[in-house]
C-alpha cells in the first residue's frame, strides 16, 4: 500500500510528461520531426536564368534551393507533405521570365514563387505575381524598386544594389585610398546603373574623381571603353553589371592594355576564375553577403552540405536560394497552411538562422543582408573588407 502510495506521484509525473511530450510533438512543425512526408506535394516555382547571360548564377541558386528542399523533405516536408521544386528558365529576359511565371502559376499551380535573379525581369513579373496572389521571394536581384513596387507578397532577400554600391564607396575611400575611380557600366544592367548613380552621388564633393562609361552588353571589344578610363587616370575600376564571361574578357583586355589596377564588381567570382587565369582573377574584388569561409555554425553546416552534394563550393546565390526556400517552408509551417496571406504574414515573423544570418524582413519586405568585399587569391576566397550595416 505504502509502495502504491509512494508510486502514484511518480506514475502521475510520467503520465504528465508523456501528455506534455505529445502536446509538444504536435506543436513542433513537421519539418523538425523527421517523419516521412506524404500526400500531395507543396509546389514552389522557381524562375531563374538557366540560359542567357547569367545562366551560371542561376545554376548556383537552383542548387541551393534543391539542397534546401532535400533537407526539408528529410525532416518531414512542409505541413507533412513533400516539398517539390519546379524550375522554369527565365533566360535573364523580362518577357521569358513573365511567361515562366504565368506557366508556374496557371499550369503548375505553385503556392509560392522564387526568382528571378535579374532585377528588370523581376520588375516585369511583379504584376503577374500580384494577380496570382502568392508569396514571392527573390534570389539575388538587388533592386530596391522591387519592394517599392507595392506588392505585399514580395520579399527581397539579398544585399541591395545600393548596399553594394555603398560598400564599393567604402572600399575605394578607406581600403584603396584611391582618388580616381573609373566606372564601366553594362548598357542593359539595371543594378549596374543603380550602383553607378549611388557611387557618383556618394563620391560627389569628395577628393575622389569619378569617370563613367557605358559599354554595350556583350560588346565585341571593351578596349575603347577601358582606354577612356585609363586616360582618365582611374586607379580603381568598378564594373556594374557585366556577366562573369564578359568580366573575364574585360580583365583580359585590361591586361592587354597594361592596366594593372584593382577591379571591383558585384558578381560572384567563379565564372571569372573558370574563364581566365588565376593571375587575372586575383585582380577582381567583389561584393558578397556570404563566403564559404564564414565560420558561423549555420554557415559552416550549409557549406559542408553543399560541398557534399555538389562537389564544389556554394556561391552567394546558392546561399540566398537556400535561405529563401527555408524561410518560405518555415512560414508555411507557422501559418499551418499554404494560404498566401497567412504565409506572407509569417515570412516577416519567421526566426530562421542560416548562411546569411538570422532572417530579418522589414515591413516593406526587405531583408537587407550585410554585404562585404571579398577576393579570390591562390584558390581561396578571402574576406577583404567587412562593411558594417
Amino acid at each position, binding site marked *: 500500500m505504502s509502495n502504491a502510495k509512494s508510486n502514484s506521484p511518480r506514475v502521475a509525473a510520467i503520465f504528465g510528461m508523456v501528455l506534455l511530450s505529445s502536446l509538444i510533438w504536435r506543436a513542433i512543425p513537421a519539418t523538425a520531426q523527421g517523419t516521412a512526408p506524404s500526400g500531395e506535394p507543396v509546389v514552389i516555382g522557381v524562375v531563374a536564368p538557366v540560359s*542567357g547571360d547569367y545562366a551560371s548564377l542561376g545554376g548556383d541558386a537552383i542548387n541551393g534551393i534543391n539542397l534546401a528542399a532535400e533537407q526539408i523533405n528529410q525532416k518531414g516536408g512542409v505541413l507533412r507533405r513533400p516539398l517539390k521544386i519546379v524550375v522554369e*528558365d527565365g533566360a535573364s529576359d523580362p518577357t521569358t521570365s513573365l511567361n515562366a511565371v504565368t506557366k508556374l502559376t496557371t499550369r503548375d499551380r505553385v503556392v509560392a514563387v522564387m526568382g528571378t535573379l535579374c532585377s528588370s525581369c523581376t520588375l516585369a513579373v511583379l504584376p503577374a505575381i500580384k494577380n496570382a496572389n502568392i508569396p514571392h521571394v527573390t534570389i539575388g536581384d538587388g533592386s530596391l524598386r522591387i519592394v517599392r513596387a507595392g506588392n505585399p507578397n514580395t520579399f527581397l532577400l539579398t544585399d541591395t544594389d545600393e548596399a553594394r554600391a555603398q560598400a564599393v564607396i567604402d572600399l575605394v575611400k578607406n581600403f584603396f585610398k584611391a582618388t580616381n575611380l573609373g566606372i564601366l557600366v553594362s548598357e542593359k544592367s539595371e543594378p549596374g546603373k543603380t550602383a553607378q548613380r549611388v557611387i557618383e552621388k556618394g563620391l560627389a564633393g569628395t577628393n575622389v574623381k569619378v569617370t563613367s562609361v557605358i559599354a554595350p552588353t*556583350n560588346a565585341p571589344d571593351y578596349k*575603347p*571603353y577601358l*582606354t577612356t578610363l*585609363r586616360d582618365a587616370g582611374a586607379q580603381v575600376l568598378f564594373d556594374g553589371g557585366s556577366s562573369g564571361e564578359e568580366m573575364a*574578357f574585360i580583365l583580359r583586355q585590361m591586361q592587354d592594355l597594361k592596366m594593372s589596377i584593382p577591379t571591383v564588381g558585384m558578381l560572384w567570382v567563379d565564372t571569372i576564375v573558370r574563364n581566365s587565369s588565376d593571375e587575372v582573377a586575383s585582380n577582381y574584388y567583389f561584393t558578397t553577403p556570404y563566403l564559404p569561409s564564414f565560420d558561423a555554425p549555420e554557415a559552416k553546416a550549409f557549406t559542408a552540405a553543399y560541398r557534399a552534394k555538389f562537389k564544389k563550393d556554394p556561391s552567394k546565390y546558392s546561399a540566398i536560394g537556400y535561405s529563401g526556400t527555408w524561410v518560405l517552408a518555415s512560414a508555411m509551417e507557422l501559418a499551418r497552411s499554404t494560404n498566401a496571406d497567412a504565409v506572407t504574414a509569417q515570412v516577416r515573423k519567421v526566426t530562421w538562422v542560416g548562411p546569411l544570418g538570422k532572417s530579418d524582413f522589414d515591413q516593406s519586405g526587405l531583408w537587407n543582408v550585410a554585404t562585404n568585399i571579398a577576393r579570390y587569391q591562390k584558390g581561396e576566397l578571402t574576406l577583404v573588407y567587412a562593411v558594417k550595416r
Partner: protein
Amino acid sequence: MIASLIQQVINGLLLGATYGLVGAGFAITYGISRVLNFAHGAFFVVGSYGVFALFNYFGLPLGIAFALGSLFVLPFAFVSYYVVIKPYGPDKGSTALLGTFGAAIVILEGLHRVFGGRLLVLPRMFDSPTITLLQDVHVSFDQAFVAFISIIVLGISLASLHWTGIGRRLRAIVQSPEAAQLIGIDPEPYRLLSFVLGSWLAGVAGAGLAFLAPIGTGNGLNMTFVAFVIVVLAGLGNIGGAVIIAFALAVIQALSSLYVRAEVSLAAPYLFMVLVLVVKPRGIFPTRA
C-alpha cells in the same frame, strides 16, 4: 592624349576587320540575291560555335579550330538558300526576308539547344598577351592575329570578285541581272555561290571574334544590326563600300567613347547613319544599278 587617340584608332581598325567581313558578306548576298539576309548574324554565331566545338569536343589546337570553325556555316547556308532564298527571292524579296528571319530563329534556337544557353569563353590563342607599339599603345596578339586573318580573307574575296571570271560574272549580275542573262550568264548558280560566300564571310568573322568576346546566341542579332547599318551607309549592294564603311564605323565607335558622353557614344553609329541618310539617302557609295 596623342597615345590615347592612336590607341582608340587602332582599337577601331582591329574591330573594323571583323565588321568588314560581316559587312562585305551581307553586301555580297544582297548584291546578287537582292534579299536582306537577316540570318547573317546567325551564320556569324555558327562560326563562333564551330571554333568552340572543334576546340572543346574534338580537341583540335586553337589555331586549327579557328581555321576550320567557319566551315560549319556552309551546310547551314546551303540549306537556308534552298529552303528560304531560292523559292522566294529575288522577285518575292519581302517573303524571302521573312524567311531569313525564320532561318535565323531556327539556327539560333538549335545552337541554344545543342550548346546550352550559357555564354562560352575560349582561352587565349597566344600565351604572350600584348605587343607594345608606343608608350601606352598596346595591341593583343590575339586581336592582331584575328584582324590579320580577317583582312587576308577579305582581300582574297574582294580580289576574286574583281579579277576572276566567276567574280566578273557575279559583278555583272549585281549591275544588271537582265543584261547578264542576255549575254548568257545563268544567275542561279551565282546566287547560290554569293549566298554561301557571304554567309561564310560572316562565319569567318564569328570564328575570329570567338577569341575576343564571349560566345553566345545573342551576338547574332547584334551582328545583323551592325551588318545592316554598314550596307545601308555604304549603299545597298556595294561590296567595297561596305568594307570602307565597316572600318569607319568601328573607328567612330572607338573614338566616340573618348570624346562624347557615354550615353551618346553607344548611339554614335546610328546617329551617323541617320545623318548620312539625310544627306545621301542611297548611301555614301550608291551602286549604279
